[in-house]
């Protein structure tokens, strides 16, 4: 069992995440999904790579995969500043509450989502929300984009110590998502 970066997220259970380091594998899972969803959190205003804020990477992922977005917390304002309009607004707990209902119509009214990606949510709150989905939403899979292990997700990145490595992962993911089948 892989240890999460933050000890508050240590798994006390038997079903943990699959850690994936390969961006191509991540892209493959996303592409296979029929109705993926990208949930965006307030930490995306951070600028760990020194060039552009994380939100730009997140929006590039959404664009590359034609993935609808949910703005949580106060990230909406920054999205609008950058010319992006979220498909929907919820707080993270509210979107999780909706996702756990199999018959929820989803943010585009096309049916509930089958793959939900979380990016930019503080890890303790994010992992708690993922716990809800692990236990109560067997109809969907979850994935995280932050540089930490989220034990309650289905698919998580490893703990990435070097931000450059994380940046490379995100860039490669965007590239792979853009590639035609």
């Amino acid at each position, binding site marked *: 069992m892989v240890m999460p*970066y*933050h*000890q*508050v997220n240590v*798994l*006390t*259970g*038997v*079903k943990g995440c699959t850690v994936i380091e390969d961006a191509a594998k991540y892209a493959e899972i996303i592409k296979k999904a029929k109705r993926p969803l990208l949930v965006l*959190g*307030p930490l995306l205003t951070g600028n760990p790579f020194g060039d552009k804020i994380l939100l730009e990477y997140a929006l590039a992922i959404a664009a590359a995969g034609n993935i609808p977005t949910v703005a*949580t*917390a*106060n990230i*909406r*304002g*920054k*999205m*609008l*500043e950058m010319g992006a309009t979220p498909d*929907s*607004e919820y*707080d*993270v*707990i*509210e979107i999780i*509450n*909706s996702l756990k*209902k199999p018959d929820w119509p989803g943010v585009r009214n096309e049916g509930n989502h089958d793959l939900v990606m979380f990016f930019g*949510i*503080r*890890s*303790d*709150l994010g992992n*708690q*929300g993922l*716990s*809800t989905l*692990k*236990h*109560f939403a*067997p109809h969907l899979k979850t994935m995280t984009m932050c540089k930490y292990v989220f034990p309650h997700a289905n698919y998580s990145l490893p703990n990435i*110590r070097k931000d450059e490595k994380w940046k490379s992962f995100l860039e490669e993911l965007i590239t792979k998502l853009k590639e035609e089948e």
Partner: protein
Amino acid sequence: MTQLEEKKNSFHHDHIWEVIRGDDQWEPVGPTPMPSPTDLRNWDMRLMKTYKPFYAPFCDLCCLCTYGKCDLTGSRRGACGIDISTQQARIILLACLIGCSAHAAHGFHILHYLIDKYGPDTKINLGDNVAIEAPNIRLVLGMKPETLGDLLKVTEYIGQQVVHMLDAAHTGQEGSYLDYESKALHIGMLDHVGMEVADLAQISAFGYPTSEANVALVECGWGSIDTSKPTIAVVGHNPASSTNVIDYLTASSLMDKVEVGGICCTALETTRYSDKAKVIGPLSHQLYFIRAGIADVILTDEQCIRTDMPEEARKAGSALIASSDKACHGLDEVSDWEVDDIVKAIVEDGKQVLILDHVKAGEVAVKTAMALAPKRRKDLITLEEGMELAKECKTCGICERVCPNLLQIGEGLAAVAKGDVTPLEKLFNQCLGCGKCEEECPRNVPIFKIMQLGARKGTYNVRQGRGPIMDREIRNVGAPLVMGTIPGAIALVGCSNFPDIDDIVDIVEEFAKRKYIIILSGCSAMVAGMKRDENGQTIYDKYPPDFDQGGVLNVGSCVANSHITGAVIKIANIFAGLPLRANYEVIADYCLNRVPAVGVAWGAYSQKAASIATGCNRLGIPVVLGPHSSKYRRLFLSDKADDDWTVMDGRKKELVQTYEPSPEHLLYVTETKEKAMVAIARLCLRKNDTPAGRQLKLNHYISIYKKYMGPGLPDDLQHFVRNDKDLPIVYKREAMTYLKEVGWKPKPVLTLPTLIGTYPSKVSLDAVVR
């Protein structure tokens, strides 16, 4: 037929009648005096039909019995048959039981202490301006307590219920998560009763401020402590010992020669007793202050005390006196020793002691502090020393991995090594003060010592805890609150596990400026005063202390939270004229549907906080929590606009689908203060708002949304606009365009919305009409 009438001619009936003095006709006895765990179950089930329990399991296993460990992941069940939802609800019940017990036992202890001192017939006296002295007790038990002896009967009832509910958590008992939640709601309700007992006793017997709003401002913060004087730090919640410190100092004319500062709620209790005492700071500053060694004596009582206090006190060279049977810390009890012998053992031999005689504990604390202080140095670290120590840090990141607030401590230390303390000042405000970072550091960097450089060492202020809201204040604000022209009453309560300490000030400021009523308690009340603006003013300097629009007031410690629910209850009673006595469903229904009160527990960490919030929820008060609180495992969420928002129109006596999700949730976690502020404004909406009131509330909701979420309108605005009269003038054109786009249709406006009549209850619809 009421529950009590059904039980007529039984021992149970006679017992209740005797305890509540049923023959006293101050009000007719309502349907649920001294309710059993199931008397209000239907109300709970009705609440949970809309506000469904939402679980985020913190642990996938159950480890409570020797069948286990049992994995409950997904649809698995434990060996006893329990599923993951029911297990979460069971843990919630246990948390509420612990929380309720902490307050009730505080009340029980202080009552015994005060009855021993003053006698059981000592009158409850809250001054001339508080006639409804015990709204929670009147409402729940149906009793009008007059003496300390009466309060003892209340604690006996709570004790009986706690035992009963603890039993329900045994393996092989309750099997429904909804029933566990109903029990948790029951215990949460009783928690407010227990808190009320404790504070009524304290106010009456200690002579705390009451029946006035403009109470004193007391000094707050590290800088308020004159380190040249002998210093006693009182830590915890129960003032039995700390008040004796004050008494001894006063009797010995030493008050100006010794510093008494408090950490956590004892600070608020002690400053209510004497405005010469100081508030050192909240729970999150406890370990910092202790390790700084400023206290010559640490006097602990109960709750929220570091459990490693003996070790920490010894490392700091401070004397330690424990004074509660609930937190003995393994120390030798010396209650029977002569005072001078105890002082000698502490000063000469470094003995740490347990003294359960509070008078003696007070005297020993003072004498020890005066003897020890001249022998001790209290120097805080210098920047040069800090820079040298910080250079030991190699930013390996282990401290960050164990930090419960996920802080990037290494970056702060790296800056200090270069002589820059600015990042550390930010970190200090975010730090929860647990000490995990230093414990795990492989290079033994004294992080806490270095963090002293980031501590706010100024002197701030906090208003004394004022106790209950006065009846005339309720009369003044009842109508505007219920009609919506005062947009809401917001209570920021409790502990200090904040994502950032300054969040509290920012939230208070935002809503006080907008003329909401702001009520504070506990650690939140302290930190609200620990920031000065560009003019050097704290929020207590800037806003009036009245329970009125734009007022910012501090009710007191944890147990004073009962005055917040008490005020809401009194609005239903004094303004709306609804009888209180054992009339819980009617009053809770009124609070839910008509009183725009919202609780905010931004830094909640304890079982007490879980219990307080659960009690608020049963009374129909929504509560917003900070991000750490997702670890409480359970929220109460509606399905927003997708839910069934049918209520009874009390005047027409017919069911009406309102299509309006108000209040939208009962227990809700947000990640950032910005989102919390938007949520608070939205949660103040009530179905009975007048058009003017709704306009005002929507004006704030939209304005806060635009300020923190960016341009445009909230995407749920259409759910809260009943007709065009609800639209704030300043946003009317923009809103009408939006409403047209989303296909908005007018909704019914109700003046008497109620859930009574929508679920099985013995309460008749006529009971809500006044």
